[in-house]
């Protein structure tokens, strides 16, 4: 599969995530769009790791050259899990204080 197809797919998913983060005001939806952007980047990392493996396995059949990319994806998932637990705790605290999930309520942080 040509690598450009994967790049286009991940760009479209990432742009959908950006548009969602810019156009919605519900904090939870914005957070979900950030997760969508994470996943687009993860898919691209795996595709690039297999691209490097395809280039290296021409000369060496037992090559393991792309393993680092897949491990980075693993670490990104780990960090995303920690980030979601803290972020949802912040959202629950925001909802308890303002009784709303409107992101514009966070404007008051600047004063």
């Amino acid at each position, binding site marked *: 599969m040509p690598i450009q197809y994967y790049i286009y797919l991940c760009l479209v998913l990432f742009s959908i995530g950006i548009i969602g983060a810019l156009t919605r005001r519900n904090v939870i939806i914005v957070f*979900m769009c950030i997760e969508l952007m994470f996943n687009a980047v*993860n898919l691209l990392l795996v*595709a690039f790791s297999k691209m490097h493996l395809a280039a290296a396995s021409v000369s060496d059949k037992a090559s393991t050259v792309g393993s680092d990319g897949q491990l980075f994806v*693993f*670490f990104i998932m780990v960090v995303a899990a*920690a980030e979601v637990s803290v972020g949802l705790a912040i959202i629950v605290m925001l909802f308890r204080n303002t009784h709303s999930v409107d992101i514009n309520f966070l404007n008051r942080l600047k004063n």
Partner: protein
Amino acid sequence: MSTTEILFFFLSALAIFSAIMVLISKNPIYSVLWLVVTFFAISGHYILLNAQFLAIVNIIVYAGAIMVLFLFVVMLMNLNQQNEPQKGLWMKVAGVVSGGCFLMVFVSLVRQAVDLRTKVAMTTGGDIGLIKNLGRVLFNDYVVPFEITSVLFLSAMVGAIVMGKKD
């Protein structure tokens, strides 16, 4: 068209369609469920790329744990269409235009990249995505980041408990 191509285009169309449905659903619960569909499509892409370990981890961690956490929070807050805050029309248009500009710039960049024209991503082959190889690399070369991750999880757990506590 080979089977791999048919599967690729089907999974891509499913991922993009459900990602769009995440945005345009009014009810947050439907958004969460469509996002789970997106994650399953991306896991299908991982299987297509023979990254089996990441496919399983993606289903267990993302579609299983994280999205259930989202679903709990959405149901806890009892949200529905009526009290859903909406941005103004002009803000929505500006967001879509700026996201479209981002997409356009990067698509033209990739189209002009000469290096990428001959590269292919290896599907249905290559053993680096299996847990045997990934475990060996993880516990040989990446032991220190692995241990630091445990400290990160401990701090995230402490932070979530402290912030979730009623004071």
